[in-house]
């Protein structure tokens, strides 16, 4: 690409040079001049020129122009409100009109103090009102979903929210209704706004019209602190700010990292923070008394008991990690167990293959890809929601998106990928060696030499790769799995909720659980040490791009953090490990991250490491993807392969947030249209799903599903086997959604 031609123009008497086509708002900013805006938001698509806040005078054009719709042209002479009386009068007029029907209830408005309308009114608006008529009044607030409240009186109709809904999330659920001064924002057919990304409209709203039901009346901007950290709920690691007041997290805002999240955040990342204050949160170490009871013990006793358990196991220890530990915590645990006790056996979360480092690129590269191939049976949104938004952006930019259940390319697609300079492969499924097979595919397509072509694996856990690398770096020995298991250490809530880990616990003599919640510890752990959340820890995560990002402690946890007590416990086994994340990171960085990296280098917006040379992944046993059930004979309906999936809105964190209940998956089984038709099942029918056990679920026909599978959320699939029979419920009185005896 050739560098764009530069143009020189004058704004308020200042000469500024920018590439041709730069927006006038940005051009003015380069010159240190503000063109105030409400509706303008480049991330929402082309400017609309609706609010008229940005009026400027352009020499040679008699009428005031909407600055946001103009681009820099050679020789242009622009006057903003600062120098042009006409422009100032226009901006003043716009604000006067906006305020004519605005309730001016700033003292009780959540937005007050951080409100663009307030700020711009102070800078550009009239100091008093000339409006002597009753203001338009409307019902308010309207809960457009359990998480969002709409105040239509405060709304200034900038249409940012509807544009987000239409052009970014592409859900089309937010619409404008009526006309003229009675125009109002509404959800389509007044249905709740149910989308993965709905919360972004709260942040986009330049006034207090769309507010978070969780944050309403909780804090004022002058008594809060915003802590820059990252979200720890999926492998993207969206950059966020945690708003805290008096030591409590009150809301989560996005913090634009243009390469990672572009300032968008999914509703899980935004609304899940109340999990910190769940009723069953564990505050002290717990010791098992009797079969299912627990007794609270002191930390001193807790560490004594832990030491005793560790010594008692005689090295026959297995550690199950969640993939949501920081790399520092995983490394410290590894040092304690592997160096201190020689306990090398671990159940590690699915990690991303380092072979993919040769095809590394920022996630933002997906947004302007010519062709995106998504391989696998897991939905991108369930694993890494923001990646789904980047894919939508690619499609809007004219790119093609191809979805494949298996990594089998036809000749035409293969040729396209070979010849393209902007192609992206995404692995969104289990198996595949953590992207190792994807790396091989990318290599075979010649992606190594093309910086615009990249490959991403969407792992199941937020920091699986970091945890695996840190655990590996802690020692360099390997040991066979102990038999029998003397002690199973369960680190984190995801591991504690994992049925496979539970099965392992059955075979273990003792279980030590590190978890946040009673519900996850009861009935199987001998000792529970309280865990902390990603919002309460210092440390780092490695995201799916391979980017090392920093978590910053937003609030002091109600319990000592893991690194602190691991450090103390390690000392009892002669292992020295710092309780400070920065020092642990420095130690770890020497072996894993090239020796140079420090916390300071990671910064608030972490850079992406350079591509590595391609190294073929180690051959390892790759679990084959089970083939789809054979096409059944005409009269035999046959079985379907059960496709269990973990929905985005599931897991111990989401389960503890009442506002997110409406987002959780319904008790339904998704079927391909052909499979449903053959069974005479219609959308919404109550159906019986049968393997070793029997469930009654509601049927949903999904056109995108390949035939031969039945897709059921993990929490509803319960103990179904790998193949199921699906038929219409014979008993019409059986209601869907419950288990039948």
């Amino acid at each position, binding site marked *: 690409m050739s560098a764009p031609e530069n143009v020189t123009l004058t704004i308020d008497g200042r000469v500024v040079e920018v590439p041709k086509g730069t927006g006038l708002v940005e051009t003015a900013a380069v010159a240190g001049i503000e063109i105030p805006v409400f509706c303008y938001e480049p991330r929402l698509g*082309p*400017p*609309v*020129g*609706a*609010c*008229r*806040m940005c*009026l400027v005078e352009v020499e040679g054009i008699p*009428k*005031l122009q*909407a600055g946001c*719709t103009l681009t820099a042209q050679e020789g242009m002479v622009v006057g903003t409100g600062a120098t042009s009386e006409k422009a100032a*009068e*226009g901006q003043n*007029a*716009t604000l*006067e*009109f*906006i305020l*004519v*029907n605005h309730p001016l209830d700033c003292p009780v408005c959540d937005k007050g103090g951080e409100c663009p309308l307030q700020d711009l009114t102070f800078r550009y608006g009239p100091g008093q009102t*000339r*409006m*002597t*008529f009753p203001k*338009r009044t409307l019902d308010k607030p309207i809960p457009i979903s359990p998480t969002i409240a709409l105040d239509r009186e405060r709304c*200034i*109709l900038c*249409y940012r929210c509807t544009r987000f809904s239409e052009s970014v999330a592409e859900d089309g659920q937010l*619409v*404008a209704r*009526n*006309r*003229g*001064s*009675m*125009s109002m924002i509404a959800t389509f057919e007044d249905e709740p706004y149910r989308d993965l990304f709905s919360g972004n409209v709260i942040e986009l709203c330049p006034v207090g019209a769309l507010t978070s039901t969780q944050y309403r009346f909780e804090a004022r901007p002058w008594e809060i602190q915003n802590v820059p950290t990252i979200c720890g709920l999926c492998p993207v690691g969206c950059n966020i700010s945690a708003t805290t007041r008096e030591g409590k997290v009150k809301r989560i805002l996005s913090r634009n990292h243009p390469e990672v999240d572009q300032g968008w955040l999914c509703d899980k990342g935004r609304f899940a923070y109340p999990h910190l204050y769940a009723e069953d949160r564990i505050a002290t170490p717990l010791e098992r008394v009797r079969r299912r009871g627990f007794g609270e013990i002191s930390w001193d006793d807790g560490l004594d008991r832990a030491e005793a358990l560790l010594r008692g196991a005689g090295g026959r220890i297995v550690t199950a990690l969640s993939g949501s530990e920081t790399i520092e915590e995983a490394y410290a645990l590894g040092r304690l167990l592997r160096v201190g006790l020689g306990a090398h056996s671990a159940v590690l979360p699915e990690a991303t293959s380092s072979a993919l480092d040769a095809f590394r690129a920022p996630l933002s590269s997906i947004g302007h890809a010519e062709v995106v191939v998504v391989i696998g049976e897991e939905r991108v949104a369930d694993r890494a929601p923001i990646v789904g938004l980047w894919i939508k952006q690619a499609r809007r930019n004219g790119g093609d998106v191809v979805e494949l259940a298996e990594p089998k390319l036809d000749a035409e697609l293969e040729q396209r990928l070979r010849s393209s300079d902007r192609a992206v492969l995404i692995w969104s499924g289990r198996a595949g060696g953590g992207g190792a097979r994807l790396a091989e595919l990318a290599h075979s397509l010649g992606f190594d030499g093309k910086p615009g072509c990249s490959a991403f694996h969407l792992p199941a856990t937020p920091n699986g790769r970091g945890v695996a690398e840190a655990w590996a770096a802690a020692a360099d020995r390997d040991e066979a799995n102990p038999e029998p298991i003397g002690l199973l250490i369960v680190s984190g809530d995801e591991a504690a909720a994992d049925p496979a880990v539970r099965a392992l616990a059955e075979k273990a003599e003792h279980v030590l659980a590190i978890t946040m919640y009673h519900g996850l510890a009861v009935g199987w752990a001998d000792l529970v040490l309280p865990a902390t959340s990603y919002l309460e820890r210092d440390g780092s995560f490695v995201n799916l791009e391979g980017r090392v990002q920093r978590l910053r402690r937003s609030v002091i946890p109600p319990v000592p953090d893991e690194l602190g007590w691991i450090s103390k416990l390690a000392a009892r086994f002669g292992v020295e490990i710092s309780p400070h994340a920065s020092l642990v990171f420095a130690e770890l960085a020497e072996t894993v991250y090239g020796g140079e990296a420090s916390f300071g280098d990671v910064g608030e917006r972490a850079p992406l490491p350079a591509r590595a040379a391609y190294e073929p992944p180690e051959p390892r046993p790759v679990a084959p993807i089970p083939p789809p059930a054979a096409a059944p004979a005409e009269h035999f309906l046959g079985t379907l392969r059960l496709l269990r999936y973990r929905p985005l809105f599931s897991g111990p964190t989401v389960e503890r947030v009442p506002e997110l209940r409406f987002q959780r998956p319904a008790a339904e089984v998704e079927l391909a249209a052909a499979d449903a038709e053959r069974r005479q099942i219609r959308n919404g029918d109550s159906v019986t799903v049968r393997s070793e056990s029997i469930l009654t679920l509601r049927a949903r026909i999904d056109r995108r599903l390949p035939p031969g599978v039945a897709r059921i959320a993990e929490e509803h699939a319960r103990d179904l086997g790998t193949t199921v029979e699906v038929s219409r419920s014979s008993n019409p009185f059986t209601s869907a959604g419950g288990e039948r005896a």
Partner: protein
Amino acid sequence: MAEQRLVVLQGADERDLTKLAEYRAIGGYDALAKARALTPQAVIDELLASNLRGRGGAFFATGRKWSFIPKPDQNPNPHYLVVNADESEPGSFKDNEILSRVPHRFIEGCLITAHAVESKHVFVYIRGEYLGPFEAVRDALEEIREDDQLLGGVTIVVHRGAGAYICGEETALLESLEGKRGQPRSKPPFPAISGLYASPTVVNNVETLATVPPIVAMGGAAYAKLGVESSTGTRVVSLSGNLVRGGNYEVAHGITLRELIYDLGGGVPDGRELKAVIPGGSSTVILTAEEIDVPYDYDALAEVGTAMGSAGVIAIDDRCCMVQLGIRVSEFYEHESCGKCTPCREGTRWMTAILRKLEAGEASDSELDLLLDVCDRINGKCLCPLGETAAMAVASYVLKFRDEFLAHLDGGCPFGSQSPLDGVVAPVNQHTQSPVAEVPA
């Protein structure tokens, strides 16, 4: 005595030109054959020579508009001709008559234009309430549907609007046609570059297109001899309000407003006095009775600060209260404001509120100034002309009839209920009827 000069409506008084055979009998569709024998550029040149300017209201040179359309090799997207038949301006009803009486001339104009801009797709966006004109066009299309040669591979789709004045604004019309909320787009890009479905699009008014066949038939130069230099050709003018003989009259540009009102319209009935004239539909600046010797052409009207707009001439007699007229017009624009840009959405509502207060006799001196200031703050700051023209029109009532407004300050309206505004643009509740109710099953 001034007389009509029929070009667009030529032949319709003598024959039923809604019938293909009748239209053929007076040489109908010959111009199409003639145009198709020419290159697209030659047709555009003919239009440039005629100096035909758009009859929708903006008066932009039609040939120039066509010449902005990129050639197919410059832009491979389909090219579209979109017809603005969403005639909704209070006081204008000329397109209604043209579509109803000479639908074939209109269709012929569409086909010639499609040839000139190398388009195969014509969309006619017709006002939802215009059931009669819709049926006339539909029936005419039915008649030529069999004739592949006539259509020449061009498809003509007639789309009925759903009752929004703003959809007469070309970009709002395109949004609506695409199935979106009818709101204007920010320009540029202009429709010629990125219009319907982001493709090169010509948007022309009904009358403009119905003028194209006569121009091709008689030659651009001959057409240019009609009318006056700045405003060539004829214009179908809708006369309404307090007149003896309201209706549509096709006249050559340059006739005076006085001739239109007295010679063709028969003057004000019942011996009353003419008080004011709205010269180009409700959105234009009003003229007093003393100003009507102005010739009805673009430049002359611009000189007296008003515009020909969509040629809806509304005569107002001495019974009418200008404040009530202001309310009627302001209510219309408040009701029809699309709600996209701030000044129009909020300003028109404020204007109406002040006018109502004036009419009730509860306003003060300063509120009259406030009204003018609100108009001034709308004007020149909107996304599209809707709010701006509403503000200019209402402000002109105050400026030209200030004494009457001042008379309202003490004790309310001097006309009281004696000012019915009968026949002077329809009250807003008549604009709220749903056109959908009329859709035949």
